[in-house]
């Protein structure tokens, strides 16, 4: 086939294909998916696969996405991370005499939500102590919108301390002591211990100072001013605030929420596109190529060789794929790589295509031009590659597209059973985690719905393209 012929046939194909609405939608989705897969490091961050399998420090666990607020009557606080530029310094190393130094900064959190943050985390304040015997001292107070002042922290600390306010016993105690003056004394007296241990510290801290603050806190909206004071006691001590982080652990997080390890599901979703596309496309291309080579060879050879190859085909086709895949994957548990999965899926994926390719080749073999070529002395490989293959190629492209969904779904199923490549981020694994953590029975919809939609979308993309190609390339089906 000459280059101009190829160009003409491609243009011809395209002018037919563009009339297929479903096919165009498929192409659009495919472009979108490929873009997502390629741009994954830029959309999210490049280190996601490395850190995916560890706990994500500082993130809230199993919280819905931020946009969930548009659908709820109670507004939930989003996740916010502040740095040194978001606070106002009032004193930076002011000398108080006899080596004592004083640092002070404030930050103001505007609580516009019915449910305040889960926690406030203050971390990465580096103190460089010359004498560990006299550590630094921190005092943290909050001035509420109603003018009431609560002292949360008053303690010594050294470098590397992480202040997770809601998780600290002293803060819990302080908040309880402060709030109990507004609560019904009878309630406080009767359930003191249960209230202390079960109350949501942040909800109480951000609540209206009224009866019920402990048992049924109502959010008090407005600006909360946090005042932090730090003292050091040796002349050589230094405090470095440049990496400081203040995290308001959200009741919601990002575009897709988080899972039980605090992982950003949006990042997982974006990165999962890569594995899904790579597996789907490579399995489809390889199994179609093998299938066609097998089928055409079988048809061309004919006789007992054909018979034998057909029996081999039937044999492989009647192996129940999924149970055997599960068995093999379980046997290599923990060592399964993407290539193993591709190999296993190709091993079982070529049979159907081989069958169709054989019957097509049998027809073409009887055509007069093949006979003519043979009469001219053309060899086996020339007839196969020059005369039979080009006729089968259109079918091959359509069946490549149509075998992607099966591969994608099987890979997802294996991952869902916990048998995928453990070093990759896959949608099936996200759903596996969701299933082992009973996400459905707890109603964590943001953890269950998006990965499944993504899997279906990849499959649907190739179904649409495949059916459209089939209609264009096999005109017999066009009337259907």
């Amino acid at each position, binding site marked *: 086939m000459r280059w101009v012929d190829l160009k003409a046939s491609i243009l011809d194909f395209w002018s037919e294909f563009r009339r297929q609405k479903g096919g165009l939608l498929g192409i659009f989705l495919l472009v979108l998916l490929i873009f997502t897969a390629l741009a994954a490091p830029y959309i999210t961050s490049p280190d996601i696969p490395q850190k995916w399998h560890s706990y994500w420090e500082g993130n809230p666990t199993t919280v819905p996405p931020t946009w969930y607020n548009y659908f709820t009557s109670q507004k939930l606080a989003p996740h916010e991370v502040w740095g040194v530029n978001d606070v106002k310094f009032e004193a930076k190393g002011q000398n108080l005499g006899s080596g004592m130094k004083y640092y002070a900064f404030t930050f103001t959190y505007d609580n516009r939500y019915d449910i305040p943050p889960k926690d406030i985390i203050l971390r990465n304040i580096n103190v460089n102590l010359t004498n560990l015997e006299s550590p630094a001292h921190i005092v943290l107070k909050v001035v509420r919108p109603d003018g009431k002042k609560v002292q949360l922290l008053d303690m010594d600390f050294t470098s590397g301390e992480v202040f997770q306010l809601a998780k600290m016993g002293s803060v819990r105690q302080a908040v309880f002591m402060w709030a109990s003056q507004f609560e019904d004394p009878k309630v406080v007296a009767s359930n003191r211990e249960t209230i202390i241990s079960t109350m949501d510290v942040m909800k109480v801290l951000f609540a209206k100072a009224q009866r019920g603050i402990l048992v049924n806190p109502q959010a008090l909206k407005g600006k909360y001013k946090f005042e932090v004071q730090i003292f050091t006691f040796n002349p050589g001590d230094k405090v470095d605030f440049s990496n400081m982080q203040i995290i308001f652990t959200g009741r919601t997080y990002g575009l897709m929420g988080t899972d039980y390890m605090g992982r950003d599901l949006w990042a997982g979703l974006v990165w999962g596109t890569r594995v899904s596309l790579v597996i789907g496309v490579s399995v489809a291309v390889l199994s179609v190529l093998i299938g066609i080579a097998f089928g055409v060879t079988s048809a061309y050879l004919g006789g007992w060789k054909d018979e034998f190859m057909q*029996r081999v085909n039937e044999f492989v086709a009647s192996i129940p794929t999924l*149970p*055997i895949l599960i068995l093999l994957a*379980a046997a290599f548990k923990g060592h399964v790589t993407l290539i193993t999965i591709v190999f296993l899926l190709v091993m079982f994926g070529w049979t159907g295509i081989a069958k169709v390719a054989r019957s097509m080749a049998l027809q073409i073999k009887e055509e007069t031009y093949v006979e003519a070529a043979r009469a001219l002395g053309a060899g086996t490989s020339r007839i196969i590659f020059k005369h039979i293959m080009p006729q089968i190629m259109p079918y091959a492209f359509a069946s490549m597209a149509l075998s992607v969904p099966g591969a994608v779904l099987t890979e997802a199923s294996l991952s869902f059973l916990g048998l995928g490549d453990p070093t990759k981020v896959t949608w099936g694994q996200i759903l596996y985690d969701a299933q082992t953590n009973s996400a*459905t*029975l*707890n*109603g964590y919809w943001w953890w269950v719905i998006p990965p499944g939609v993504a899997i*279906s979308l990849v499959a649907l993309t190739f179904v649409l393209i495949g059916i459209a190609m089939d209609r264009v390339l096999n005109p017999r089906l066009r009337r*259907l």
Partner: protein
Amino acid sequence: MGYGRYIVFRILNAILVLMLVTLLVSVLFTKVAEQDIKSSINEEIGLYLRGNPQLAQALSKDPQKYHQWYEREYNRRLKMYGLDKPFWVRVLERTKDTLTLNFGQTRNPIFGETNIAKIIMAAVPRTILLFTTAQIIVIFLGILLGVKAAQIAGSAFDRAISIVAMVTSSIPMWWFGMLAILIFSFKLGWFPGSGMTSIPPKTGFAYYTDVLYHMVLPVGTIVFVLFGGWAWTTRNIMIGTMQEDFIMAARAKGVPERKVIYGHALRASAPPIITMTIFALLGSIGGAIITESVFNWPGMGRLYWTALQQNDVRLVMGITFVTTLLYLFAMILADLLYGYLDPRVKVGASQKT
């Protein structure tokens, strides 16, 4: 003659597949068992030493002697467990065990049982109950809708069926099950999303209605994901048949349209519809099995899930073998049916006549 040969071929093929699977299961099984036994031999020797402080003391003085003693003891136990035999002999023994469904014991009891064969025997009927019920509904619905769509090809209804088929064939069935639990069990609370019976199980007639009630969501999931594909296949085959000459002849003769469709066209389309769909059915067994585990239905699917969670390779092997057995059985059944329905089926020598 053709039919008989065809069936013999198919049965031989099934036996060959079963042999391969058995061999694969046995090889993996032998490997795993070897690792298990070797690590337990080390533990046993350690325990024995701790039980005999005098011997331990005597041996600890002389490392050379300890080494000899250890080697002797290790080999003795290896022989006791039959590990001294060559690998392939053990594989063959294992094959015999597999064929006689002697898979051994699980570490933790499942369904109150530790014998793997008994556990699987308890699970199989439950899976068949769920899957068969769903399939009957799918076949009925699929053929009905497919015939209807073929009758009014090109209409909005026909296009809707095609779209539903395309979309549902792209959905992982087990994920749709998770979605169904989320909506109908968690959000709306209409149906239970887990298990086969209430806990504790009801007695008498209430038991059966309770099981039916628990079946609604899993069966609904399987039906929803599969019926579109059936309808679409039926439609495509029916449209092909409706363009045949004998349909035109029947119409020209004045046969009522209803009779043309159900009497002539559907009957002629039956063999391809049945085979295509039975093979689709066999293909969907895997998905249905995983779906089962999502619904915590105590069948083969949940066994798979439990086995993989507990890393119980013996159980995985047992389930694989039994699933393969069932699969091949269903396949031969499909072949028998197809060969019976379609007299054109001929293979081998009779193909040429």
